[in-house]
């Protein structure tokens, strides 16, 4: 078991003929992902890496069972691509693209949530991976080993570091989801925690948060009320000054919102230990799982 994706997940790639799309399609195929089709408007009928290309998602879904879509479409067209997948009935949409206009995302997220049956991950995210079964993202698969810790993160490289440390320590990853560093994203920590809560393979969950917004505080409230499994936290950017955007558009402390103090207090309230370093994440997981 795992969450969201496994060895049976059939995937399409939107933007498959672009540089990023083609590069990561090859990496996903190598990692064992079942990429059944690609979509690039105007390039239907071609084939890339043995994968058939369609003009629209609708056409791809007419010829294939599609469980998930991953999007590498450039920022100006990315929100539209996510909506295209959602309206074609694809239940899981992963938006990798960085730099999407915020108001496009406000509308796309509202529309997709109103549809009710589509889960959007991202934008500006590394995607997700169930090691050994399905890589629906841009992460280096070699640092992920299959195991029993669920990992959710707002960052890319910190996720990889954490996954590698947990894998080397022998715990491994059940599923890892990078939710993205933008202010408006499809799924937050608290949207994904219930899935890990119900996944028998996941014995503990690690949340890699960072400064900005209040997703960590919302997650802490869910954990306190519902979580049946141990959770370990991490907060990046503790030393960042207020009002400065630290690379991620979402990583900014505005007034009293988004401070590390607020997040630490919320985690403490939910009995979630918080690691100061990635090595400490492993130690805290060890303290919970033995």
């Amino acid at each position, binding site marked *: 078991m795992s969450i969201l994706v496994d060895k049976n997940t059939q995937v399409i790639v939107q933007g498959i003929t672009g540089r990023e799309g083609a590069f990561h399609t090859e990496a996903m195929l190598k990692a064992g992902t079942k990429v059944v089709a690609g979509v690039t408007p105007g390039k239907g009928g071609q084939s890339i890496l043995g994968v058939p290309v369609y003009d629209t998602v609708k056409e791809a879904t007419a010829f294939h069972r599609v469980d998930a879509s991953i999007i590498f479409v450039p*920022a*100006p067209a990315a929100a539209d691509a996510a909506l295209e997948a959602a309206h074609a009935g694809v239940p899981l949409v992963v938006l990798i693209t960085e*730099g*999407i*206009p*915020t*108001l*496009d995302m*406000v*509308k796309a*997220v*509202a*529309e997709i949530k109103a549809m009710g049956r589509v889960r959007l991950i991202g934008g500006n995210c590394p995607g997700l991976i169930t090691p050994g079964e399905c890589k629906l993202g841009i*992460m*280096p*698969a*070699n*640092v992920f080993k299959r195991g029993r810790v669920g990992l959710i*993160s*707002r*960052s*890319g*490289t*910190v*996720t*990889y*570091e954490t996954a*590698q440390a947990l894998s080397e320590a022998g715990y491994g990853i059940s599923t890892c989801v990078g939710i993205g*560093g933008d*202010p*408006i994203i499809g799924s937050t920590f608290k949207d994904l925690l219930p899935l890990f809560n119900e996944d028998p393979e996941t014995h503990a969950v690690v949340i*890699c948060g*960072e*400064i900005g*917004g*209040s*997703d960590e505080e*919302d997650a802490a409230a869910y954990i306190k009320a519902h979580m049946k499994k141990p959770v370990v936290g991490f907060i*990046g*950017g*503790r*030393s*960042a*000054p207020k009002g*400065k*955007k*630290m*690379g*991620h*558009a*979402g*990583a900014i402390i505005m*007034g*009293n919102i988004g401070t590390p103090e607020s997040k630490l207090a919320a985690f403490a309230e939910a009995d979630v230990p918080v690691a*100061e*370093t*990635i*090595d400490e994440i492993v130690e805290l997981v060890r303290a919970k799982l033995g």
Partner: protein
Amino acid sequence: MNLHEYQAKEILAKYGIPVPPGKIAFTADEAKQIASEFGDTVVIKAQVHTGGRGKAGGVKLAQTPEEAREKAAQILGLNIKGFITKKVLVAKAVNIAKEYYAGLILDRVTQRVVLMLSKEGGVDIEEVAAARPEALIKYPIDPFTGLRPFQARELVKQAGMEGNLNKLADVLVKLYQAYVGIDASTAEINPLVITDTGEVVAADAKIVLDDNALYRHPELTPLREFEAEHPLEVEASNYGFSYVKLDGNVGVIGNGAGLVMYTLDLVQRAGGRAANFLDIGGGAKAEVVYNALKVVLKDPDVKGVFINIFGGITRADEVAKGVIRAMEEGILTKPVAMRVAGTAEEEAKALLQGRPVYMYPTSIEAAKAIISMVGGTK
């Protein structure tokens, strides 16, 4: 991207929101000239990309053209929180009866644009929100319908604002139209003034644009002022790096915003302070590392550099080559601690043999090492 008050007001005026007549002056004589054109009391306001102008002496009233010249001379050149005042807005003073607050921000919790309203305007709204949260109304706007006039009227009533209801509501509707029209991330009117004759006027305005959407507003791109930004932030953005100047002495280079933030935290934890945030993004080729070093080392505060790179397929020897090039060109004369998780670490070590560049297996060890080389600042 931050806009100046006068630029924000020009945009609001374009969308039909009343603003006091005003013109920009670069010299005291120009300020005098503008004041005599208005033939009335004027307010002279520093145009800098920071708050707290009033407290810093950057906003002054002038009754006569001669006084306008004097006051402008005092404000021009004024250093406000590190920003030198190069121009002032000379605007007709308004006779204030009431001062309100109206703002639009992006709210991550509701994932919508939220209208904030308060009848306690003219002061720092964050202080109002902290002290009396009930004095600030927040209304998430449906992105598909926008703000409708009846909703705006209801909110004006709910906020307890006095004055012409239709005019106030109209300002709110137009403020939302402007926000969406220019892809703002923040648009605030503070104070939103009711004058002694009952007019509704935006006496001050702040607009921040969404950088991701600038490509669809070519008319707004020229409003970016490079001299108002940190020169190294401008240079870094030309290389495609994300750079933020900080106040310590350890230059930091890493890949991925999360990892760079973590690296800053490690520097602080080891007893030091980072001089900057620099994210090189994906792909740590020698050229990229070399360019990143060029940017970081232009900062005279930097006493040593911490390079923290993670990548399943990143080659450590590529990173080393970039470092060596910077040394050979004389750009890099300071010690470097580097940690590269990837392949070809042995090749990198061989290349770096005998140079003041030290490789460490973990970020924590590298952080401790660089602090011991540059000395802590705590």
